[in-house]
């Protein structure tokens, strides 16, 4: 069975293999090899028989082809109502076809299916809200990605991302030592301004165990410092685990089911080890979906919940503002037109729409907040979800997909977009770079730090 040296069915499981794949810039050789790898049709069919359970089988069968899902999909709308972008068509012509053919599909079919699975669906799950049967094409695309990954048909960056989780238990090459070192260093850098600022690592029985996105550690360490500052000023008893600190899961985007389990287990182990009252995750959408919403099922937890109560950063923030743990100086509230990006992964998928709006009430001067239309659980994906942002091969499609969000933002007239999700933040940054509409974008942490009414003894030194 022909396999490529770089593109093959074998997961990446060593730093050396990662480096070899990384050195193939943009996946040039990888994608060339992909054109000639064979599909293991027996394995594919066996996997489907073992893993494609009643929910997905039922969904595929009961789809009435009514077309209600068409207008719900922003990729259909932004692609001039291209019938090939109708969610029902996208899943029937890929997963449906593989099942009808009992796994007997060829290389060419799988390459086309890969393109649909990663460039024509961001797994935003919006279509499920409009389907009269509640059929969720996003969930099915996630499943399809798993089949594609197994057969070696996965975008280059996501094969790397999943490999990072396998090797480092993080989406980037950040070791546990790197994490602790970076966290302590960055807190020290800000300690000058915030007297008493601490980097509490591995504290047993803390009220909060905080988990992050590895890219904050690798590329944006100020985010770690901002989290530390806000917990500090709120007077929280908090900690970070030296192991199990990474909340994200590019393996979920890649469809690497085994790596999904490996990754989330590290976080759950940290919960068991440190026994915090709750876990708070950073301003990331897919990290929350992976660790809090889907992770319990990956590891087979019967109650469908993580070992300790786990909340998103916006929930902690909303509560801290509501209860007065964090106080805002009203004079410093935002007085520019502001809008809010609802992250699919914790708003549509986990119902957290009111937490962000509670925060808005505290930080935006009345009259300056403008909702996007549609919004809350009906909001459109940022345009780059589900791994779309990170895949160079599909950059033209992704840039076109950003037009939906661009136009939604333009209609609000907002000059600042609050985006409490790394993926959304990137997409909005990229749409500004691509289309230059004159907006700024931000996470919540830096905005709130600037407007805090800080108790005398915690105030920044002059």
């Amino acid at each position, binding site marked *: 069975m022909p396999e490529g040296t770089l593109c093959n069915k074998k997961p990446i499981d060593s730093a050396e293999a990662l*480096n070899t794949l*990384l*050195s193939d*810039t*943009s996946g040039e050789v990888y994608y060339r090899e992909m054109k000639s790898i064979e599909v293991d049709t027996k394995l594919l069919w066996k996997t489907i028989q073992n893993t494609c359970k009643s929910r997905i089988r039922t969904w595929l069968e009961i789809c009435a082809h009514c077309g209600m899902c068409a207008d719900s999909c922003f990729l259909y709308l932004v692609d001039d109502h291209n019938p090939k972008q109708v969610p029902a068509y996208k899943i029937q012509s890929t997963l449906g076809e593989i099942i009808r053919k009992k796994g007997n599909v060829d290389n060419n079919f799988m390459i086309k299916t890969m393109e649909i699975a990663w460039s024509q669906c961001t797994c935003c799950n919006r279509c499920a809200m409009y389907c009269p049967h509640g059929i969720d094409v996003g969930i099915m695309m996630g499943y399809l990605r798993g089949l594609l990954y197994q057969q070696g048909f996965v975008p280059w*960056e996501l094969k*790397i*991302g999943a490999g*990072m989780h396998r090797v480092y238990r993080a*989406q*980037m*090459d*950040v070791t546990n030592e*790197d994490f602790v*070192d*970076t966290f302590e*260093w*960055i807190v020290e*850098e800000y300690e000058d301004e915030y007297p008493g600022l601490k980097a509490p690592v591995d504290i047993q029985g803390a009220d909060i165990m905080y988990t992050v*996105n*590895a*890219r904050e*550690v*690798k*590329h*944006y*360490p*100020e985010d770690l410092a901002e989290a530390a500052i806000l917990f500090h000023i709120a007077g929280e008893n908090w900690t970070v685990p030296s192991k199990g600190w990474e909340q*994200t899961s*590019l393996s979920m985007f890649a469809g690497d089911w085994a790596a999904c389990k490996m990754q989330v287990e590290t976080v759950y182990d940290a919960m068991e080890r440190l026994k915090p009252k709750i876990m708070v995750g950073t301003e990331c959408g897919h990290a929350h979906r992976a660790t809090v919403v889907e992770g319990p099922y990956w590891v087979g937890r019967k109650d469908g919940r993580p070992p300790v109560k786990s909340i998103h950063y916006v929930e902690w923030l909303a509560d801290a503002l509501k209860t007065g743990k964090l106080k805002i100086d009203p004079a410093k509230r935002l007085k520019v037109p502001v809008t809010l990006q609802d992250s699919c992964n914790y708003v549509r998928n986990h119902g957290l729409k009111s937490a962000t709006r509670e925060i808005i009430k505290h930080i935006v001067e009345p009259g300056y907040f403008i909702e996007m239309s549609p919004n809350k659980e009906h909001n459109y994906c940022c345009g780059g979800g589900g791994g779309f*942002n*990170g895949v*160079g091969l599909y*950059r*033209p499609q992704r840039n076109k997909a950003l037009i939906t969000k661009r136009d939604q933002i333009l209609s609000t007239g907002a000059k600042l977009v609050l985006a409490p999700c*790394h*993926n959304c933040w*990137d997409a909005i940054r990229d749409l500004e770079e691509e289309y230059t509409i004159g907006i700024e974008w931000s996470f919540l942490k830096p905005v709130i730090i600037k407007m805090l009414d800080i108790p005398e003894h915690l105030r920044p030194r002059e």
Partner: protein
Amino acid sequence: MATVEINGKEFEIDEDGFLLDYNNFSDEWVEYVRQQEGIDELTDEHTKVVTILQDYYEKNGIAPMVRVLSKLTKFKLKHIYELFPSGPGKGACKMAGLPKPTGCV
């Protein structure tokens, strides 16, 4: 792949504007990224960051963490942002001719 031209030299770039072939790095590339990133004037400090990123990349095949960059340059994070407003993972890596970092960057 797209091509950009500056001062008579052509460069192939990837979809996000990163240099496609690290071996084509040159002063003209630095000048191109300087303009793209809106950096007014190149200083020895920019050069120091670029050189350190390249040394690390040549040894490890990947961009370093900001922590490592700060340690090696002895620059504080805030100063690195002053030098490269779009951030060390984006602007600085781009200027050094490194490939686009993978993962969500």
